[in-house]
């Protein structure tokens, strides 16, 4: 049930205009797709998130390919990569790093933690204690860490892909809304379809598939994407549409709270990147609709819902009830 929503709300087909960028995206998707079968749309969304410079939260049941996706992405983009496994005894220092007294030199020397890499995979983030979570999330927001009074910059680009199990499972510390808000997108992978699953069964182990992913984008390409996506234009009609979408979530009884300005900015940022990835230099409503579920779902909650899993149906309402023309 949790993962069934994604297919339903994805637009029929992604319209592609042949440009250099869109071709690059196409090859990357194909490359990552080698590791994660039949999940092209999710791969595309994950790329969109990274190209927009946002952090990504992947939420699904164990064994759905969350880690595979992040591994494959790191490889395809050629980014330095570290993984943090979230457990309840993980301490902030385990993520950020620690100064150790070196007896030979009689000095403290800093041993950077896994956070100091371009792509950080924070696995099972909701299994760590809130204290550790907040250390990680602070680093995500500030893009710098302060350890023992010394501020250290994180590498550029800096991405965090966090995965989490649905909070309904035992032994988890659900992320509060304010911290969920830090993630540009939340993805759900969902079960593979029949054909992909068959293919998967016919193949070797997962690890082999990730090995097969080749780097197809350089660091410069990623930075170029981020720069160009800022130049994508938005017309008045489109801004009107986005404003109506946002306004729809505010001041209604069924919405526990409306979208924040940060939320609407996230929509615009992702939609622009999406348009660029489709090879366009302007945003159309379909772009907004494509990214809307993953950008907005984790920022919304129905009034009647205590656990924060009603976002998907609310987004469906948004898509179905707010027309592109007033």
């Amino acid at each position, binding site marked *: 049930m949790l993962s069934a929503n994604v297919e339903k709300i994805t637009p029929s087909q992604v319209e592609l205009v042949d440009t250099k960028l869109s071709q690059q995206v196409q090859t990357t998707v194909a490359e990552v797709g080698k590791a994660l079968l039949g999940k092209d749309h999710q791969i595309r969304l994950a790329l969109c998130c990274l190209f927009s410079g946002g952090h990504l939260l992947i939420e699904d049941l164990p064994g759905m390919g969350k880690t595979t996706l992040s591994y494959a992405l790191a490889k395809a983009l050629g980014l330095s990569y570290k993984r943090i496994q979230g457990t309840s005894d993980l301490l902030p220092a385990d993520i950020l790093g620690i100064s150790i007294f070196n007896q030979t030199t009689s000095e403290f020397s800093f041993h950077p933690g896994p956070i100091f890499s371009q792509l950080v995979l924070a696995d099972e983030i909701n299994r760590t204690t809130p204290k550790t979570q907040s250390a990680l999330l602070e680093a995500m927001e500030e893009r710098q860490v302060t350890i023992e009074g010394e501020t250290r910059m994180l590498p550029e680009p800096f991405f965090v892909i966090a995965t989490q199990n649905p909070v309904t499972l035992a032994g988890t510390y659900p992320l509060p809304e304010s911290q969920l808000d830090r993630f540009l997108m939340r993805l759900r992978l969902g079960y593979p379809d029949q054909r992909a699953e068959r293919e998967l069964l016919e193949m070797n182990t997962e690890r082999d598939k990730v090995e097969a992913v080749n780097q197809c984008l350089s660091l410069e390409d990623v930075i170029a994407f981020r720069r160009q996506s800022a130049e994508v234009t938005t*017309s008045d*009609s*489109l801004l009107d549409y986005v404003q109506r979408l946002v306004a729809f979530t505010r001041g209604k009884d069924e919405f526990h709270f409306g979208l924040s300005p940060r939320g609407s900015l996230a929509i615009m940022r992702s939609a622009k990147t999406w348009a660029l990835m489709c090879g366009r230099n*302007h945003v159309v409503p*379909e772009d907004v609709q494509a990214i809307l579920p993953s950008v907005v779902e984790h920022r919304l909650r129905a009034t009647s819902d205590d656990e924060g899993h009603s976002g998907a149906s609310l987004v469906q309402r948004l898509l179905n*009830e707010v*027309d592109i023309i007033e």
Partner: protein
Amino acid sequence: MELNYQIPRPALIWTLAAVTLVLLPQSIRMPIWISVVALLCVSWRALIHNGKLDYPSRRVRVVVVLFTLIVSLSQIRNIGIGLDSAASLLALGFVFKLIEMRKKRDIYVVISLCFVMSMVAFLYSQSVLTTLYVVLVITVTMAAMIALNRSSSAANHSGTAKLAMKISVQALPLAIVLFIVFPRIAPLWAVPMQTGVNSTGVTDEMSPGDISQLARSAELAFRVQFEDAVELAHEQLYWRGLVLDQFDGVTWRRTRNSSSYSRAASLANSRISYEDRVRTLGESVNYNVILEPTQQPWLFGLHLAEDINDEFFSGRNFELFNDGRITQRLSYDLRSHLQSQTDFLLLSSSRNRNLELPDDVNARSLEFARELRASVSTDREYVNSVLAHFRMNQYFYTLNAPLLGANRIDEFLFDTMAGFCEHYASSFTYLMRAAGIPARVVVGYQGAEMNPYENYLMVYQYNAHAWSEVWFEGEGWVRFDPTGAVSPTRIELGVQEALRDDPAFMEDDLFSAAIFGGVGWLNTMRLRLDAIEYEWNQLVVNYDEEVQLELFEGLLGEVTKQKVIILVATLALILIVTIGFTVINIERRIQRTPINRFYLRACKELAKVNLVRRRGEGPIAFRDRVCAERPEFAEVLTELTGLYVELTYVEKSVSETQKKAELQALKAVYAKLKTEMPVLAGLRRAG
């Protein structure tokens, strides 16, 4: 410790203005000292606001209450419980409330009182002018409310006034609808109206000088409109009021042996049935009379007026009476047979009454009458010779008749020879009775002014007149007007012409209309204004339960419960829908660009062949879906969508002409879609 609330200055200004405006028309009728008290209170409140004075202390307030009490009691003692005393009590309480207006709640009380007080004006007058004035007062009161609730930063007087006017105008349609459909319910209680007011118009007693006094007034007495555009000559317009048949040497009176105003008495009087007394001849004329309030029960009509709707009862001498004094403008329909004859048979009691003369006075006149009667053979000839006497001798028609002594008739006939119609009617009737011919005086009005704009007649107080009726064997009562013998102009052209050079005529009205009647445009304006007033009376003031019912019957046929329910429901629905639309419009007015309009129209066209763009579906997604479902539409829709997306979502700077060209292109594609539609739809069916 209560907070020291300061009423916002604009709100106070508007409220004080509203209070002043409300009291202004009443100050004319109220004792002058109430206006002074009101003025004091208004200035006191203004000074409190400026910090010059303090709110009244408890002692002052007790004194004020006692003062009001004493004043009210004394007023009730002087003029009785009535409209005037009630209105002045209300006004006093109203102005005293001003000086203890501290909190927001108090100012709301004053504003609500303003609304109530403004309605008091309608108890005195329901003219167009009053109505307009009350609308003004209500608008100002509304402005006070607006000023009270506006934040001080947004408060400028013109904005407040504009908003108040806007609200008033918006309320107008609702007011009209309510005016038409709101049920007219008879009041559960009534205040005796205007007890202190003197009656106006012709009275049931006529002493010399009474009517000439009336002739000095240019007040309107009544308006008349004839059915079927009947036009009567001026000399036919004798508006009969009362028959006076008792003479004591000075005053002519109505006989009131039994209270003639009561229904029972009038029934007893007509022992001879109506049909036996009247012989109707010639054509009848129907007309409507709107009588100004006279504070008297009698009505005016032409010769032998018959009341069509059977609302009134008629007196012994075919006078008409209302049931009670006429305190409000009264409209009634009459039918008159101008040539009819009445009372061929004169009962002996009646004959005696109409021959009675006071003893021991006017000996010369008696002698004159007997001699003259002896010189002619018939009563008719006698009448003619008396009229000839008036015509031949130097009788003078004037408002300023000299004072007369004990033998009034004698002195007038033979010495002073100058008088107004009452002198002529009186002496003529006296001469008839002296010769043994039954005769009586009739008072009423003669003549009228035509208002060409609405085709009705206006009868003024200066048209008041007295004439005589003489009884002949076989003919009944016949009207004779001795004034006509003296001054034919009076009867044929009207009193204005007859008294053109008499300075006393209408001297009560300094700026009277008739004086300025000579100035063309002023006269036109006067007639127009009166025409408006007339229409207003016809349409608005006279709109009572009956007219309402008639209107509904005219619109709906017979009024049944279901129809009333349907009507009310419909009106409620219209009201709700109107309010709904207004609210929606206020919330937001959707203004679509022409591009969006054309795209939506195209979508509508496609919806006809079951290709409905879903709510929230983007143009590209829609196109893709249509292309998959109905490939025959692919070409035209792709063109349309491409253009639409280009125009709507691609941000670029274009000139106005380019924009126009683009819109033209979209229009062209839309037109193409429309023309190809049937063909494409047919393709599918054929396939």
